[in-house]
């Protein structure tokens, strides 16, 4: 039925810093189907962006180590991107896998016309004349719904508003009709009304161009309406994954639940205090031996701090790494939803 377009296997990324080696991504496995939207959710510093930059091959070589032996691989249409050199990667970037970034204010070259920035990726990857590239760029600007596209092509980024710039960024990224779009917090720097517009736009273009989207965000609210599947990352590992329904209605990992609880609800009134998760993510230079969430977890047990939990599968799509679902775990005091899952 669905065809895997990208498969990430046992991805490990670490950075050499002055303080020591920081293990930013510690064994991440996931896949992406053709045309679907996969959301990667988690707090700042949990490895979401590093994972997506690793796929793009955009991590600086000088201080980064990516594990390449053993099972580790990033398979794109069956080809292992980890074995690709800089030259081969630059033929994939922008053409078959594109990326848009968090801050549209700084992601566009301030001294280059918007039109030239869109045309650039077309000219790099397609054998077309400048005139033809310009026409395509114009078409892209119209596609991302920028009014007066003809005139806008000749303008510079500083003449665009934040939302407009993100649209232009999307036009740059999609100019060559890539198979995968990685959107790294595409709406974080924008205000709420613009956020919705941009997410709608990405959704529309995804259908039109039949591409798969990896949506990286810390905002579960953004994810709900657009994602097909969600995976939750914490401290460089994926702690839970499932379909949108499973994550929103039947989440199992205490961290996922904490994330969900910290989203304000429409019926929340101003007398209630919004739930906030206490503590901070662990130091990745010396990551904890057991479950890295254990110190902040409401239901933490002795075993949690000693050994990393095995994966428990709940359905074809949902699985979670948590000791609470071990047959011997004490389920007393768990919220109802979680008990139901654990009894099964």
């Amino acid at each position, binding site marked *: 039925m669905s065809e895997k377009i990208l498969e990430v296997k046992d991805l490990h990324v670490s950075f050499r810093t002055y303080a020591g080696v920081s293990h930013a991504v510690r064994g991440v496995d996931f896949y992406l189907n053709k045309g679907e939207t996969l959301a990667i959710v988690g707090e700042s510093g949990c490895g979401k962006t590093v994972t997506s930059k690793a796929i*793009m091959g*955009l991590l600086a070589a*000088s201080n980064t180590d990516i594990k390449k032996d053993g099972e580790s691989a990033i398979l794109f249409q069956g080809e292992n991107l980890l074995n690709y050199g*800089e*030259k081969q990667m*630059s*033929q*994939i*970037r*922008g*053409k078959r896998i*594109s*990326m848009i*970034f968090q*801050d549209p204010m*700084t*992601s*566009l*070259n*301030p*001294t*280059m*016309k918007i039109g030239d920035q869109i045309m*650039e*990726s077309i000219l*790099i*990857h397609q054998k077309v004349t400048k005139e033809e590239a310009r026409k395509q760029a114009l078409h892209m600007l119209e596609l991302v719904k920028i009014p007066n596209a003809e005139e806008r092509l000749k303008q*510079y980024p*500083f*003449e665009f508003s934040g939302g407009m710039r993100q649209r232009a*960024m999307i036009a*740059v*990224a999609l100019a060559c009709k890539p198979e995968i779009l990685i959107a790294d917090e595409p709406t974080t720097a924008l205000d709420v009304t613009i956020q919705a517009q941009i997410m709608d736009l990405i959704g529309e273009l995804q259908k039109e161009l039949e591409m798969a989207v990896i949506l990286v965000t810390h905002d579960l609210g953004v994810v709900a309406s657009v994602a097909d599947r969600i995976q939750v990352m914490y401290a460089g590992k994926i702690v839970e994954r499932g379909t949108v329904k499973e994550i929103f209605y039947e989440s199992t990992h205490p961290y996922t639940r904490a994330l969900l609880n910290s989203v304000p609800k429409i019926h929340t009134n101003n007398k209630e205090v919004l739930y906030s998760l206490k503590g901070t993510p662990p130091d990745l230079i010396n990551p904890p031996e057991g479950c890295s969430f254990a110190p902040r977890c409401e239901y933490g047990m002795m075993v949690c701090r000693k050994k990393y939990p095995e994966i428990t599968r709940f359905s074809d799509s949902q699985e979670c790494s948590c000791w609470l679902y071990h047959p011997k775990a004490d389920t007393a005091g768990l919220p109802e939803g979680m008990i139901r899952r654990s009894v099964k």
Partner: protein
Amino acid sequence: MMVKFIGKRVAYAVLTLFLITTATFFLVAAAPGDPIAAKVGQMPEQAQEIINEKYGFDKPVTTRYIMYMKNLLTTGDFGESIVYTGKSANDIIKDNTLVSAKIGLMALVFQVVIGVLLGMISALNRGKPVDHMIRVLVVLAICVPSFVFASLLQYFLAFKWKLVPVFGWGELRHYVLPVAAYAIGGIASYTKYMRSSTLSVIGEDYIVTAKAKGCGKGRVVRKHVLRNSMIPIVTMIGPALAGIFGGSFIIEKMFSIPGLGFYYVKAVSDNDYTMVIGLTIFFALLFVASLIVVDILYGIVDPRIRVAKGSK
């Protein structure tokens, strides 16, 4: 819009020049000593009167100032030199500016081209041996004064290896040493500035965007890094542009080049007040003009500053 912008800048420039002229005039007038007092004392009364009338020394400062300004604005004449009788400051400027400018301009071209190149190489190879080497050389070149370089160059290139003449003026080969000695310090500072501005540009988000588009390394540097990291360099070129006309007193003195810097310093020590004021105004004019040029250049390099765009 551009015309209006430039017009406004020119108006400010005129005001600035007026203030500088006035300030210089009164400062020089207030300075102790008199260029001809010594000579005047030995002259017959009649001669004294003629000289006093010619230069207006017998009148109060304000009257002299009004006389001077009237003369300057109507004829553009800076007045006759007190030391080189019969020659006006204008003649000195006319005869010697080009000499200084030629050396200065050549040096500036070398400074910018080599500096930008080295700075880029250094930044793009950050932490590698090339980078360390360039940085050490830069520190050396900045710390060692230009006259030391000049003498070293004279000793080795001219005296020991006899490649070029030690000093002199007139032919192309005479340019080699002064231009080299003049350029070295500048090359070092342009390298230093270019390195740091390139490093900061490399860290910008739009460079990641460029890579994500599929730009190869060369293209990223040519299309995205170079222009953005040149912006601070353009600011530096402005004052340097004004500086080249003034020349370098030290270099001109060491290589016996009849440039403007040479005369300027001499005028101060001679108390030749018409020359001092005239040359000061001339340098101020160049400086102010070069700042306007920089503003225009800036607009070309950085579209955000281009005021011409303000149609909407």
